[in-house]
């Protein structure tokens, strides 16, 4: 029996090693590449670990952002940090606003009885079935007409609508887990509905609100289609757009392209690993990334 347990563990760890290599391997290679000289990247066979550790491409991005055209750095590298800040602004704003508006919308869906509740819940979910591409066409047309194209505020607004249904769904299922007695006690003590939400529901839902905010941030950070279609200049490019500008340009050195890729996944990966519990619980109770 002991023998069998040992064999089982060996099989498990071989499988786990394969999964581990497949999961983080490709990303680690990207990180390793970003710390090498361009000419080392062109080695055959490839050099697995950077030796020495080269920070040139990272310095380029910072110098380019500060010195502009004088730095002699490629265009994409110069505008990258700006786009990084834009991504933070858009994703951060969406996370905050989506959780605030979402929480108020989720409360009645979880707790109140009113006509059309089922319809509202269904409509909110169904809105996510419409492909973004078909909505993109009129949205771009209108944004250009009313002068809202090329503004990051527009990106906040558009991303909100895709994130909100998701946040509402997640929060209403979380609110349902809060014991009704607590709310009733508050009502008997003379709290209004709004006070019940503020003093009982929201404080008790902190874990749920946190997962919703983090997921909203991550989903918005990775959004590409609207970021691409609604931006025309570095003032509104997000990091995913600049990454695509890098990746589709053959004249930029590999190491610059790779470095931009690494930098733009640092925030989401750090977030994902730090808040993994919140994310996993949020993913399991809510919908999906897409």
């Amino acid at each position, binding site marked *: 029996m002991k023998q069998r347990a040992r064999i089982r563990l060996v099989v*498990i*760890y071989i499988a*786990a090693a394969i999964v*581990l290599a497949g*999961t983080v391997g*490709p990303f680690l*290679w990207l990180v390793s590449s970003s710390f090498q000289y361009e000419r080392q990247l062109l080695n*055959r*066979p*490839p050099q697995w670990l950077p030796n020495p550790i080269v920070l040139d491409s990272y310095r380029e991005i910072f110098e380019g952002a500060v010195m502009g055209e004088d730095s002699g750095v490629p265009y994409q590298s110069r505008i990258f940090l700006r786009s990084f800040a834009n991504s933070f602004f858009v994703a951060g704003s969406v996370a905050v606003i989506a959780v605030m508006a979402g929480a*108020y*919308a989720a409360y009645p*869906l979880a707790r*109140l*009885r*009113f006509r*059309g509740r089922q319809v509202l819940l269904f409509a909110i979910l169904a*809105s996510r*079935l*419409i*492909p973004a*591409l*078909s*909505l993109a*066409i*009129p949205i*771009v*047309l*209108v944004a250009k007409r009313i002068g809202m194209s090329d503004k990051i505020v527009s990106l906040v607004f558009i991303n*909100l*609508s*895709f994130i*909100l*249904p998701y946040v509402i769904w997640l929060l209403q299922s979380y609110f349902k887990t809060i014991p009704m007695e607590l709310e009733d006690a508050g009502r008997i003590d003379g709290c209004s509905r709004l006070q019940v939400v503020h003093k009982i529901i929201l404080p008790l839902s902190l874990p749920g609100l946190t997962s919703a905010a983090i997921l909203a941030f*991550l989903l918005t950070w*990775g*959004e*590409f*289609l609207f970021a*691409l*279609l609604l931006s025309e200049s570095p003032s509104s490019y997000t990091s995913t757009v600049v*990454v*695509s500008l*890098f*990746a589709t340009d053959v004249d930029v050195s*590999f190491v610059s*392209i*790779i470095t931009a890729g690494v930098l*733009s*996944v640092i925030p*989401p*990966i750090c977030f*994902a*690993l730090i808040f993994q519990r919140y994310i*996993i619980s949020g*993913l*399991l109770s809510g919908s*999906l*990334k*897409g």
Partner: protein
Amino acid sequence: MSQGALALIFSAPAVLIIAATILVPFGMAVFLSLHNWNLKRPGRERFVGLENYSDWLSDRDFWVPLQTTFTFAILAVAVIIIISLLISLLLNERFPGRGVLRALLLVPWAIPSVVNALLWKWLLNPQYGLVNAIFFEFGIITEYQNMLGSMPSVMIWLVIAYSWIHIPLATLLLLSGLQTIPGDIYESAIVDGAGIWQRFLTITLPLLRPMLSIVIIFEMIFAFKVFDIIFVLTAGGPADATNVLGWQIYTETFRKLDFGAGSSIAMLLGGITLALAILFYVFLDKGVEQ
């Protein structure tokens, strides 16, 4: 105040945002799809009824991308489901380090699709890519190749690159499904002398079926809408080999600036996606009841 009025007030901000950015554009997209509306020929906009639709339905530029989309989606969903089922079975076993492995699954999940495309573009580089290097070292190929340069290898690698960031979520969802299966069912099966394969077929698979159906439906919907990775990795090429419907809509609308034709093909994509979702739902759900 009645609960209905409260619900209205509470959900107003969220509902207004969703309506403004989803419902209104959807209505406009329907409107555009019924018109001749090309930005290159302003002033010639006119109502044409269902002409755009009938044009598409008799056009190879619709049927060929549709076929490509199907091929891509079926392959991608198959790869995602098989691999995530295997990983979730592994993570369902108890072993030291399981939590770490589960957390690290979030690394690919957190990577934005555009950065993922850039990562694979680097891995698959025809001259310096790691995939070429590894295949060469192991003697699988005798000289470096452009994996994205011809069929079928471009489709295979596109599917792998796409699946890489989609496997983690599918795995977590399937794992949560596995964890609802009570352990004593397995124990009594072992007593009855059922082997590991028999237990998988007679216990795991049937009891996992509801979650499996949900994951298949969602992944199918996502795969049908694929766009980001195409934009960076293949741009529909080589020679339209990866020209999926999402890419066709993009080029039609934002390169040829034919918003009428673009909207109508986008509607067709939306309709097909919805039909598939319903079909799968009915089909897979029936299977559960039996």
